[in-house]
C-alpha cells in the first residue's frame, strides 16, 4: 500500500522537477549573475570545509629589537592556495628576517577574534589578518588601535572603517578574469564556442572570473557559450558537465574553467572522447590558481593557459611594515597584487618552480 503511494508520488515528483527544470533553463540562457550580485564578500578560494585548527601560538619571549607580528589566518587545510599562503608567511616572518611571529589558524570568525584579542594583549606590533568573515571586526580593531597595534589585512577584506587598518593586500579577481579573457581574445579564433565551468556561485573568485567572460561574450558576436554550469570547484562535476556536452554532440573549442581542478576534470572527459586539447589542438583549455601540476600540464602543452591567484602576500606585507617602521605613511591602503597569466607557449620550468603552489 504505502509503497505504491510512494511510487506514484515519487514519479510525479521526478517528472515535475524535470519539467520545472527545463522550463527554467530555457528562459534564463545567458543571465548568470543573478545569484552572485547580492552575496557579500565570500570565501576567496575553494569551499571551506575544513574544521578549525587549534590556535597555535609560538614563543612569546620578547627579545631585542625584533618586530612582533601576530598572524591570523584561515586553516591551511582549506585549499592548496591557503597551504601555499601559510608557508609563504612562515618563511618570511622569521627571526632571521627580524620578526618574531605568532600564528593562529581558524576558519571561524569568533575564534579568530579571540586569538586577535590575545595577541593584542600580548602587545604585538603588527596584527596581520586574513579574516574568515567580513563582519564583526570593528571592536577588535579599535582595541588594536588603542593599544598601538597596527593592523594589516591580507587576502581578504573586511567591512570596517579604513582608518582602522594600515593596508589591505588583496587579489583583484576581476582583473584575473580580464587578463584571461584578453589572452583568449588574442588567440584570434574565428569562432569561440566556450564551455564555461564556474566555481561556487557567489564566491569572489567566481564572480570576478565569470564577469570578464560574460561581458566579452555579450559584446562579441563570434563568442558564444555552449554550456555554463557551476561545478563548485569539483573536478568530478566538471567532468560530467563536459561529458554531457560531448554526448549531445555539440561543438566547442574552448574550456574556461575557473580553477585547475575543474579544468583537470574537463580534460578527463576530453581524453575519453579523444578530443585533442592544448597548444595547436582542437580545444583550448584554461584554468586558474597555478597549481604546480597544472603548470606542468602547460609546460607539456596539454593545456593552454593558467591564471594566477597570488598567495604570496608576505613580500608585500614585509614592504608595508618596512615603510611604516621607517615612518612613512601608506597612501593607497588597498594594494592589489601583481597576478600573472601563463601561456603554454611561453612558460618555462622556472615559472613552474617559482609560481606553482
Amino acid at each position, binding site marked *: 500500500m504505502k509503497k*505504491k503511494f510512494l511510487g506514484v508520488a515519487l514519479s510525479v*515528483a521526478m517528472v515535475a522537477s524535470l519539467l520545472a527544470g527545463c522550463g527554467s533553463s530555457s528562459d534564463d540562457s545567458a543571465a548568470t549573475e543573478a545569484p552572485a550580485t547580492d552575496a557579500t564578500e565570500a570565501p576567496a578560494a575553494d569551499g571551506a570545509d575544513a574544521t578549525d585548527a587549534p590556535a597555535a601560538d609560538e614563543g612569546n619571549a620578547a627579545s631585542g629589537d625584533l618586530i612582533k607580528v601576530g598572524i591570523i589566518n584561515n586553516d591551511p587545510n582549506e585549499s592548496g592556495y591557503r597551504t601555499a599562503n601559510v608557508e609563504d608567511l612562515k618563511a618570511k616572518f622569521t627571526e632571521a628576517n627580524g620578526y618574531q611571529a605568532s600564528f593562529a589558524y581558524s576558519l571561524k570568525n569568533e575564534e579568530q577574534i579571540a586569538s586577535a584579542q590575545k595577541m593584542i594583549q600580548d602587545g604585538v606590533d603588527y596584527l596581520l589578518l586574513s579574516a574568515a568573515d567580513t563582519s564583526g571586526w570593528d571592536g577588535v580593531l579599535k582595541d588594536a588601535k588603542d593599544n598601538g597595534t597596527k593592523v594589516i589585512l591580507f587576502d581578504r577584506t573586511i567591512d570596517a572603517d579604513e582608518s582602522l587598518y594600515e593596508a589591505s593586500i588583496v587579489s583583484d579577481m576581476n582583473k584575473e578574469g580580464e587578463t584571461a579573457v584578453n589572452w583568449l581574445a588574442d588567440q584570434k579564433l574565428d569562432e569561440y564556442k566556450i564551455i564555461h565551468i564556474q566555481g561556487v556561485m557567489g564566491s569572489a573568485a567566481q564572480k570576478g572570473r565569470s564577469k570578464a567572460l560574460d561581458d566579452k561574450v555579450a559584446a562579441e558576436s563570434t563568442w558564444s557559450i555552449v554550456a555554463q554550469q557551476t561545478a563548485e570547484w569539483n573536478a568530478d562535476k566538471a567532468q560530467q558537465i563536459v561529458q554531457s556536452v560531448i554526448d549531445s554532440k555539440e561543438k566547442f573549442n574552448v574550456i574556461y574553467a575557473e580553477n585547475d581542478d575543474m579544468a583537470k576534470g574537463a580534460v578527463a572527459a576530453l581524453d575519453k572522447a579523444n578530443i585533442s586539447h592544448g597548444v595547436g589542438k582542437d580545444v583550448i583549455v584554461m584554468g586558474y590558481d597555478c597549481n604546480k601540476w597544472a603548470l606542468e600540464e602547460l609546460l607539456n602543452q596539454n593545456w593552454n593557459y593558467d591564471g594566477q591567484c597570488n598567495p604570496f602576500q608576505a613580500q608585500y606585507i614585509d614592504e608595508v611594515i618596512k615603510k611604516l617602521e621607517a615612518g612613512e605613511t601608506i597612501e593607497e591602503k588597498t594594494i592589489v597584487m601583481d597576478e600573472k597569466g601563463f601561456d603554454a607557449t611561453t612558460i618555462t620550468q622556472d615559472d613552474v618552480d617559482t609560481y606553482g603552489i
Partner: protein
Amino acid sequence: MGKTKTEKSGFSFSAILRNQLFIPIAALLLLALFNLIMDPSFYAIRLGENADGFKVLSGNLISILDMGSELAILAIGMTLVTAATGGQDISVGATIAIAGSVILRVVCGGEQSVTEYKAPIIVALIIAIVVSMIFGAFNGMLVAIFNIQPMVATLILFTAGRSIAAWINNNTLPVVNVKSFGVFGNYIPGFPIPTPFIIAMICVLLIFLVLRFTTIGLYTQAVGINENSSRLNGINPIFIKFLTFVILGICVAVAALIKVSRISTINYSVVAKDIEMDAILAVALGGNALSGGKFNMTASIIGAYVIQFLTTTLYKFKVQSDALPAYKAVVVILLVVLSAPVVREKLTQLGAKMKANKKEVS
C-alpha cells in the same frame, strides 16, 4: 487513489505494484520516457576511440553507468546501515576523502608528484580498505555500543573527516602521473566498458552472494525490525549494527579508489561532496524504509542509477547545476513525508475506507 483503481484491474498488475522494485523502475521509466520525448538522440551510443587509441563506448547511457557507479557501491553499504540501525551514515563523503587520501599517500609515498608507483596499487587499496573499516568501526561503535543516533554519531566524521584527509597528506595534493592509475576511473585498455561500472557490478555480485549464502541479510532485517526480539532469538544486535558500518567502510574505500583514479589526484574539500545525500536518497528511492527493517538491495542499486540518470538528464538539458540539489531535495521531502507514521496511518485508513466503500457498492 490511483493504486486502488489499478488493484481492481487484475491480480498480476497489483502484484507488480506491490513489488518494491516498482518504485525505482517506475521512476527510471518515467525519466527514460521523458528523454525519449524530449530528445531521442539522448540514447545514442557510439563506439569511438579514446585519447589512448582504444575503442570505448560513449553516450549518455554509458555516462550514467559510469558516473553512477560510486553511488551504487555506496548504496550497498548504506542500505545495510539503514536497515540495521534505522539511521544513516552522513560521513561517507568525508570518509571517501580520507580513503582517497590514504590511497594517494601510499601510492605516492608522501611525494607531491610521482611518475611511478612507490607502492603497488593493490597495497594502497588494502590499506585504504583497512583504514575505512576502522573509521566505519568507529561510527559503528558509537551507534551500536553507545546507542547514539546514527546521524549524530556520523556527524563527527562528517565535520572532521576532510581535515583528517588533508592531514594524512600533510596538506599537499599529490598527483599521480602514471597512466595505469587512471584505469579504475576510466577504461581498461582494450575493453570498451567503463571500469567503474565493472567494479560496481563486481561489488553488487559480491553482496548478492553474501546475502544469498550467509544469514547477514536476515539478521540485519531482524535487528532493524525489533532489536529486543532479535536479541531474545540469539542475534547480537550490537555486532550486526557494527558489522553494517564496517561493510559500508569497505564500500567507501572502493568508491574512493574510483574517485581518485578518475582525475589521478584529490581535492579534500570537494571530493565526493554531498554524496552522502545521494546515497541516502538511493536507499529511499529503492522504497526502503529509512527507519530500518526490511530492505531490498536491488531496489537501492537501481535507485542509485536513477539518481545519476536524473543528474545526467539535468546536465543534458543544461539546468543550472547548482539547482540540482534542490530537485533531489524535493524527492527526499516527498519520500520522507510519505513514510512518516502520521501520513502512513492516514493513508492506511483511507485505503481501508475505499475498500469498504467498494464492497458496499458491489
